[in-house]
Each structure stands twice: as structure tokens, then as C-alpha cells.
């Protein structure tokens, strides 16, 4: 069987050497035709809608892709952790490890013309949308090769070509933006949908309900995805919300509660949501997920929850472990091969970090670029009617 490209943009070989080594790996199962049926861990719970079935069809190729992609995401976040501790990444750094299944499952159900917008926990979603490791690490370290040229930082990853709209620091502000994306899709009569993601903390924001009202009023193709990791920074969900059933919060808007640690449940839910929304208007998906790290790097994550809880979730619900067990159960690869993949992933990540470290800091003149957009034709700017050129003292 031909070793097909494993369709993972995450592992774009950084050098010819690594790509050559890639080609010489023993090809394990990349079968695209056999269907494997997987049962989700728990059934879906619906609100005002008929939940989809628990059985999800997949292929060996997809299973391997899930494993590899999630391994890359996990590895990237762990590497970002150590980079932060060695002060190469500064400011805020919100890590996504534990929640990878949401990104992976979503990508498996949609196309790159569907829009995704999220809050500040955006590194892995950026990778899922086709961003490269180099762009991510360079942006985190504030270098020129970053996806926003080093001017955005951890909370401002964007990728316009793949309809990834970021990357927003203010809690909840991205949800009205997401409804705007959906509005534009409806305006242009496109057959695509928007996933506006937010957390359990943001679920209490007023602008969310305002946006939901408008989306429902005009039947906008907006899917509101609440990534419920049960803690809004240090506040547990039961201390912040009178009704932590976020999928029911939409009242007249249907909702679905999904096990967010199960990539196939996420995939099924997103597929269901996309079909639903193109006919019936918005829907809320609540992803029951968990983050292993604290809210951000400055939060140890253990003052408001016990270490037992964290390790308990890691043992029982870890998304990568679930996929690993499925792969082994269906004999798609051996333990050693999976470990080799993880080693390969680690190497890719380390290579990306090394390359990102070599990228220079942005030039001084970059301070003033992209504040405004030129080209209208009648700008004057500046006291001499020429473009304002500021110089630093």
C-alpha cells in the first residue's frame, strides 16, 4: 500500500532530511477505505433537538491522523510551557493540553471555508486550521516569522486563508464577531458555517446572549461552542453560574452536550451541528472538556482544584490515550510505532523551536506598520501631507 501523505499540515517537514526519513518509515495502516465504527464514550444530551447517534464511522487513516495531530498539539503546548519558564515566551500564555479533541474533532467534520473564531486559548486551533509549528512558536516568541509578524502574541493567532479568525483577548468579545462572520456567510449566500467558541467563564457574558438572540432572529449559520473546562480561571463553574448547563442556556436555541475529550463525539456533534444550522439557525454545543494546565502559565492550576482530580481525568479521559487504545484495539499500529510517532513529533517540534529562535525580532519600523491600511488614494497623513513617518528617539 502506498504511503500516502498523512494529510497532516502539522508535520510539514522542515528540511529535506526529515522528509527523507519520513518516507523511509515503515508504512503502518493508512487505509482510507475500511470503515471502523466507534461508539462515543457517553451518549449526547440534547436540548430542544434530537441528538445524533452514538456510532461514528471512521477509517484507519483518520484514526492515525487524529493520533498524530493530537500528539503534535500536546507536544507543542508542553514545549510552550518550558519556553515560557525559560522566559522566551512572555506575557500571557494559555495552554490547551487536555482539550485537543475539540479542535481535532471539529476539523474532521468541517472544511477550511467554514469559519472558526475563538478566545485566547488558540494555539492548537491555529494548528488545526493549517498553521505551522514555526509560525506558532515564532509568534509566541515575538519573532518576525510569526503568524502575526510577532505583533500579536499568544492571544492573537490568525490565519485568513483558512478562515481562522483568532485569537481574542477580551472574554466573550469574539462571540458577536462570530455572529458577524455568520452574517456575512448568509449575506453572501454561502453554504458554510461559523463556529464561535468560548469558555464556561465567557458563557455568563451578556453580549453572548445578545449575539445569540440576533443569530436566532435572522437564522444565521452560527454554531456557538462552549468549551466547558469547568473553571473560569480560578472560579469553578458552580460558583459562577446559576445554571451550569450551558447547552440549555440558549432557551429557544437548541443545544447539545458533548463529551469534549472524545474526538469522535466532537466530530459527530460538529457534523450534526453544521447540517442543522444550515437549515434551522443557530445551535449551542457544549463540549465537556478539561485543561491540565492552569488558566495560564501564571496560574499553577492547583489552588482551586486537587491534583487528584487532574490526574484522575488524565488517566480516565485523556483524548490521546483514547485514540491510542482504539488504534491498538483495531491493530492499526504497534505500541512501538506509536511511540516512534511521538518521538518524531517531538523532533519536529524541537526543530520548529530551533528555527523559530533563529528568526529575528521585528524591525523598529514594524512598530508603525499595519496600523492603518493604505491605498484609498486620498490619504494625506502627517504635517507635510506625505505619509507620516515616525522615528523613534
Amino acid at each position, binding site marked *: 500500500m502506498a504511503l500516502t501523505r498523512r494529510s497532516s499540515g502539522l508535520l510539514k517537514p522542515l528540511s529535506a532530511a526529515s522528509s527523507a526519513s519520513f518516507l523511509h518509515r515503515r508504512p503502518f495502516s493508512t487505509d482510507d477505505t475500511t470503515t471502523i465504527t466507534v461508539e462515543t464514550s457517553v451518549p449526547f444530551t440534547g436540548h430542544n433537538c434530537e441528538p445524533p447517534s452514538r456510532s461514528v464511522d471512521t477509517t484507519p487513516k483518520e484514526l492515525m491522523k487524529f493520533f498524530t495531530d493530537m500528539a503534535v498539539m500536546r507536544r507543542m503546548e508542553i514545549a510552550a510551557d518550558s519556553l515560557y519558564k525559560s522566559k522566551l515566551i512572555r506575557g500571557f500564555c494559555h495552554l490547551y493540553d487536555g482539550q485537543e479533541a475539540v479542535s481535532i474533532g471539529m476539523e474532521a467534520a468541517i472544511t477550511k471555508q467554514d*469559519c472558526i*473564531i475563538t478566545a485566547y486559548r488558540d494555539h492548537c486551533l491555529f494548528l488545526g486550521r493549517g498553521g505551522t509549528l514555526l509560525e506558532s512558536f515564532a509568534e509566541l516568541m515575538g519573532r518576525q516569522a*510569526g*503568524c*502575526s*509578524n*510577532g*505583533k*500579536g*502574541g499568544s492571544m*492573537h493567532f*490568525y*490565519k*485568513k486563508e483558512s478562515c481562522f*479568525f*483568532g*485569537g*481574542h*483577548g*477580551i472574554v466573550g*468579545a469574539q*462571540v*458577536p*464577531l*462570530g*455572529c*458577524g*462572520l455568520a*452574517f*456575512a*456567510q*448568509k*449575506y453572501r449566500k454561502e453554504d458554510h458555517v461559523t463556529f464561535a467558541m468560548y469558555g464556561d467563564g465567557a458563557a455568563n457574558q*451578556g*453580549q453572548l446572549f*445578545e*449575539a445569540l*438572540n*440576533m443569530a436566532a*432572529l*435572522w437564522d444565521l449559520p452560527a454554531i456557538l461552542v462552549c468549551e466547558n473546562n469547568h473553571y473560569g480561571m480560578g472560579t469553578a463553574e458552580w460558583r459562577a453560574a446559576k445554571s451550569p448547563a450551558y447547552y440549555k442556556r440558549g432557551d429557544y436555541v437548541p443545544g447539545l452536550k458533548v463529551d469534549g475529550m472524545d474526538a469522535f463525539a466532537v466530530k459527530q456533534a460538529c457534523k450534526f451541528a453544521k447540517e442543522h444550522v444550515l437549515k434551522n439557525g443557530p445551535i449551542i454545543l457544549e463540549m465537556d472538556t478539561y485543561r491540565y494546565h492552569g488558566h495560564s502559565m501564571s496560574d499553577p492550576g492547583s489552588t482551586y482544584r486537587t491534583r487528584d482530580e487532574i490526574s484522575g481525568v488524565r488517566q480516565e479521559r485523556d483524548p490521546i490515550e483514547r485514540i491510542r487504545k482504539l488504534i491498538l484495539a483495531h491493530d492499526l499500529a504497534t505500541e512501538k510505532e506509536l511511540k516512534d510517532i511521538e518521538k518524531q513529533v517531538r523532533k519536529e517540534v524541537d526543530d520548529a523551536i530551533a528555527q523559530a529562535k533563529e528568526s529575528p525580532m521585528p524591525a523598529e519600523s514594524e512598530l508603525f*506598520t*499595519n*496600523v*492603518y*491600511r493604505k*491605498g*484609498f*488614494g*486620498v*490619504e*494625506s*497623513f*502627517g*504635517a*507635510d*501631507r506625505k505619509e*507620516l513617518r515616525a522615528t523613534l528617539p
Partner: protein
Amino acid sequence: MASIFQGVGAATSLDTKKFQLSSLRSVTGRKASCVVMRSGGAKMDGGSNQISGRADQLVTNAVATKADTPAASTASKPGHELLLFEALREGLEEEMERDARVCVMGEDVGHYGGSYKVTKGLAEKYGDLRVLDTPIAENSFTGMGIGAAMTGLRPIIEGMNMGFLLLAFNQISNNCGMLHYTSGGQFKIPVVIRGPGGVGRQLGAEHSQRLESYFQSIPGIQMVACSTPYNAKGLMKAAIRSDNPVILFEHVLLYNLKERIPDEEYVLNLEEAEMVRPGEHVTILTYSRMRYHVMQAAKTLVNKGYDPEVIDIRSLKPFDLYTIGNSIKKTHRVLIVEECMRTGGIGASLTAAITENFHDYLDAPIMCLSSQDVPTPYAGTLEEWTVVQPPQIVAAVEQLCR
């Protein structure tokens, strides 16, 4: 197809050399056959800048009349008369006709026709999706407009009163202003945020706010204030065509100004100031409704023998320091008359900008007349004392020119 405005009347204070033609620049790369750029003219050789010498004819009810001397070019049609809100509507309609991506969203803009009738008739013509009636949720419909702009649409977001946009401040500051920068240039936000602000007739404190001062330091946005039907239409069109987010400040009391504007299409420069009345003794910088108070004071000043140069700065961010600077270099005295509050207002920023750039040219400290730092009271007399009145302007000029 160019209209040429000539200065007229009040010949006592105008030199013949000030009768200059507006320089015409057509926009590069566009079908320029019917678009005329009105610019302030780059020529600054002792002469003053262009247009309305007819400003001398302005009276308090601000019915502007155009000069109809035989010397006026007959190449142009006489134009048509309309009110300021109609001029805004005309500009809006022309742009919606021209570009299918232009859409309007706001409260009561559709079926109701707009609370100040700026969008009257547009919903019937363009449909409910292009002229969108939103619920009362400023934060989120502003956010929605910005999100739509990220994908390439060009929404015009109307705040029924500028003061309501305080609820949307987060969206305007963080998303509207900053997304182009933080995404490394990937997304542009070509929105226009517009609405009436300013002190009206006893509308109360919350409905008489001037938000220019709050928005002015947001990086990434442009702010313009219109004051006549002519510049309202031109600035509306320019704002819609601009790829940057533009906040267009209208004034509640100016919507019924009547003026004759050209028939042919024109777009104004967003960053240019307007020379309302050329002069020699003092530069008076103003914008929006205070322009009319200044012109009223100018009549008194002229009778007293002063020759004020009045500039409507129009562009509140960035300031047109070119026009302003040239004026200061000529008169050496500056008076700023604004409706913003004294603390942290547009006048405060303008004072700082002028002092930084043109300190050597000043013969006297810059005087800034602003509204009082109080919430606008309801009682009519108190409200009058909140804003700058013409006698105060006259007194200020007299003090400045001592």
C-alpha cells in the same frame, strides 16, 4: 465637470489673490470620469486655500448660498438643494448602489427609516439584510459588524445616539481598531461607525454626549466630523470607501441644514481640513456645530475690525496639521473652539499637537474654548452656558489679539 467655487462678497476683507480655483485631483486607478476630488490644494504661496469664500455669507440659520457671479464657471450644473440628513442619505445610497458589499445595521434603520431619517427608503430598495434592523444590543451588533467586515463586507454601523456606542466601546477599541495590527495585516476592518452626538435641545445629560474625546486615542481608527451637507455627503462616501475603520460624527442639531450641493459625484479627503473663511489676524479651529457659532462670532469680529481665519478641521484623527500649520504660520495666533469637554477633549490634543509642531510660530498662548466639564443639564439656560457661545468667542479673539 468640475465645479469651481469662487470667493465672493465681503470683498473688503478678501484679497483678489485669494480667489483661487480648487485644485482637482482625481483618484488614481478608479473610473475617474465622474469623481472629483476636492482637496485643500497644495499651493500655499501666500494665498489661502480654496472653497467657500461664500462662508462670509453664512448666517445663523446656516442656509449657505453659492456665489452666482457671472465669473463662476458655467461648465457645471447648478446642483441641487437638500438638507444635511438627505445629503448623508444620498452619499450612503450612492455607495450602496456602487458596491454590493456595503450594508447598514443599526436600531430602526430599516422599516422605520432611521431615527433621523438618514436611511429612509433604503430598506424598501435594498432589502432587510442589507439595511438591518438590529435589536437594542450595541455591543454585539457593533461586534457583528466588525466580524462581517473581517470577511470583506463593508458595514455601516449606526448608533442611534453616539452616547449609546459607549456600550460598544470594547468592540470599537479592541476589535475595530486593533485587529489589523494584531493580525499582522491579515484582516482589514472597513467599517463606518456613525451617529449623531453633541448637545441638542434639552435632551438631558446622557443624550448630549461628545464621544470624540473618548475615541480619539484608539489606535487604528480614523475620526471625522461633518458640518455641512456638502462635507457630510463627501465624508460619508470617503468613509465608506476607506479600508480603515472610520467614525463619522454627526450632530443632532445640524440635520436640517440646507445647502446646494453639486449634482456630480464627489468624494472628500478624510484627513483634510476645510478653510471656511480665510483671514489674517487669528486662526480659529473648530468642527461640527461650533463652526456655526464661530461664523456668527466672525460677523461681529469683522465689524469690529478683526480678520479671523476660520478652519473647520473636519478630521479629528489624524489632525490635518498641514492646513493648520500653514494657517498658524500666517496668523501666529490660535483659538480652538470645540464642543468637547475641556478635560481631555479634541481641543486638548490639538493644543498639544500645535505646541509640539508650531511653537515657534506662535505669538500668544493657544486659547481653547470648550464645553464646561459638567454633565449637560436639562434646563435651557444652563444648557446654553455649557457650550461655547458666540460672545465668548468674540471676547476670546479680542483677548488673543491684544
